[in-house]
């Protein structure tokens, strides 16, 4: 397939891996921010191609994983209401709240539907004027423009029965929270290519400078990731801390201006809770006052609803790269994709799910090997 197969070429991947090995003289820890990159790494076994001195840490960039329990519970409560058609992207349906997930609400008679675009949810609202249509607006800067567009159109077309449950989070404040934490191990970042396609990368320049950390905007295919790692290692070895762009076929320095303008029209920057991490100031989006009529939390009286998170799940430490999924005592035992303790085991982009799906057997064979 054009523009995909080229980035999965074996000879080039091996060449890139050799180049990384050739310039790596010291141990370095590099974090890929985005869950999509985590999955590519584990799925293609990219870490197996790297020298032992390099450690890849898996970052907080999975929108499903970082959505706080509180918001999942709010979604469950809204979705269970008889007048509501609750629309969500597919991978939110298995995320466990305090009492079940959206699938179980659906099984009990809730009208929960998978949509591929928030505009599909808006269409449902138009077609079902007697019902309340709620869209679960989850995601990073990548999904925010489409969600902003849905709210903007609902407002302009006076579609009063459409509202959004907003849980938008932003990458740069999360990177800053990681870097300023006392247990930070990350020395360089692969920034998320799709987020930067929307936002550009100017907002990363002060972070690289302030924390002396290389940041390379990186794509999602195996060759993208290997090249991003090569660029990070080169900077680390040379003592540079700059923002570089590996994903030039998609990302421009200034990003997508019309998308940014639309987001700014509909959303304002607010403090957001991150699952397993806690509240980060100025780390997400909320609706501006002009669009408050489309706020599902207000519409269904859930603004002051609060929930504390489970203490056994270490997803917060996994999301900050402090611990690997396999270091969790519950991994693969009390916590599996069928019975997840936390969202990192559920989402297709979650680090725990990636390790469970692609690496679980290796752990078994390693253990078996030791025994023999």
């Amino acid at each position, binding site marked *: 397939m054009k523009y995909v197969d080229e980035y999965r070429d074996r000879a080039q991947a091996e060449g890139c891996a050799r180049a990384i090995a050739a310039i790596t003289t010291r141990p370095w820890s590099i974090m890929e921010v985005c869950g999509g990159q985590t999955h590519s790494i584990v799925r293609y076994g990219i870490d197996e191609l790297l020298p032992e001195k390099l450690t890849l840490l898996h970052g907080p960039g999975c929108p499903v994983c970082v959505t706080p329990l509180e918001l999942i519970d709010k979604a469950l409560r809204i979705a269970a209401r008889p007048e509501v058609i609750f629309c969500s992207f597919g991978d939110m349906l298995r995320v466990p709240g305090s009492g079940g997930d959206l699938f179980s609400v659906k099984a009990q008679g809730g009208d929960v539907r998978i949509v591929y675009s928030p505009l599909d949810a808006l269409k449902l609202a138009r077609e079902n004027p007697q019902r309340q249509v709620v869209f679960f607006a989850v995601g990073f800067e990548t999904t925010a423009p489409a969600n902003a567009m849905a709210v903007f159109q609902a407002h302009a077309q006076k579609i009063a029965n459409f509202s959004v449950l907003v849980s938008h989070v932003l990458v740069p404040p999360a990177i800053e929270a990681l870097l300023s934490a006392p247990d930070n191990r990350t020395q360089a970042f692969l920034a998320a290519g799709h987020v930067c396609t929307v936002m550009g990368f100017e907002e990363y320049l002060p972070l690289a400078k302030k924390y002396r950390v290389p940041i390379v905007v990186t794509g999602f295919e195996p060759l993208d990731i290997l090249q991003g790692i090569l660029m990070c290692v080169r900077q680390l070895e040379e003592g540079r801390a700059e923002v570089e762009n590996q994903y030039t076929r998609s990302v421009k320095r200034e990003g997508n201006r019309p998308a940014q303008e639309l987001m700014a029209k509909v959303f304002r920057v607010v403090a957001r809770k991150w699952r397993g991490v806690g509240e980060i100031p100025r780390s997400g989006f909320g609706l501006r006052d002009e669009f408050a009529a489309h706020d599902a939390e207000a519409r269904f009286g859930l603004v002051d609803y609060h929930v504390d998170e489970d203490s056994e799940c270490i997803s917060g430490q996994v999301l900050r790269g402090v611990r690997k999924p396999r270091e969790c005592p519950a991994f693969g035992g009390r916590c599996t994709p069928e019975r997840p303790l936390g969202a990192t085991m559920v989402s297709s982009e979650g680090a725990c799910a990636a390790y469970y799906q692609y690496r*679980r057997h290796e752990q078994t*064979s390693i253990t078996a090997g030791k025994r023999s």
Partner: protein
Amino acid sequence: MADALNFAANCPLPLGNQDHVTLAHGGGGRMMHNLLERIVIPAFGNQPLASRHDGAVLDVGKGRLAFTTDSYVVHPLFFPGGDIGTLAVTGTVNDLAMCGARPLALSAGFIIEEGLPIATLERVVASMAATARAASVNIVTGDTKVVDRGKGDGLFVNTAGVGVVEHALCIAPTSVRAGDAILCSGDVGRHGVAVMAVREGLQFDSTIETDCAPLADPVLALIAARIEVHCLRDLTRGGLATSLIEIAESSRLHLAIDESAIAIDETVSGACEILGLDPLYLANEGRFVAFVPAAQAAEALEVLHGHAVSAGAACIGTVSESPAALVALKSRIGTRRILDMHSGEQLPRIC
């Protein structure tokens, strides 16, 4: 007067030339009789069915009997390249073929929701008849029930099938041996994407059609060519990956497969990229894997290439004793990963 009105409202009397199925069509009376006589029996026309008996009496000849059943609840009923009728025939024919059996006869059970357009039923029955003809099998007995509106999803179909096993091979996962070659009969993932595209209203540059097709011919050709077939499996729900994982687990053997040898249509592959789906786990309705001794792999491929439905067959991997009873995929970039069973249906991702 009030009584007369109530009577009229409650009585499922036939109303003449209806174009929708009503509860009366399931009542066992004249309307049901007409429905069967007008639509079902002429479409499937064959001697055992024409006898209008409670069951069919079949001439089996020599050999062992293979017997299978499957129910079809696909939504939507129609999709590019097929419909619930084509699925209901090919699915059961293919299950028989995977036993190495020559399909002999099928039964067809219809559970119809009140209100289904008669034209829809006619279309489904016609494609069942056409598919059965293509698979050289007769639909010889059946059943029809009508359920209240809201108690079904338009139309459910159950088919059962019998086939004759005319060889002495034991075709089963437990017959797989180290040293076997794993042959896959064509590209994978088309049915899953075709159905999802219609169900979810997704549009791609070119329409993706289901691969739905009967597989008995290429399988019987393998056996006729004296290929020592150890195991066959059609790649339905769960796709290639799940089928191979099940075989690795039952045979307690290691299956090593090569990602670059597995064919995936370019549009299917593009759809999977957009939706975050893994084509190896998507459903197929006209694809199978065959485990044969490596020494016969080339000959088996030649046989498969002689049939349109398996013209794209390729060797995708090999079987060995060690290291473990699981499926290892060599990725395009040369690394290795273990294929694991998914816990449920794949869900399209956020971004």
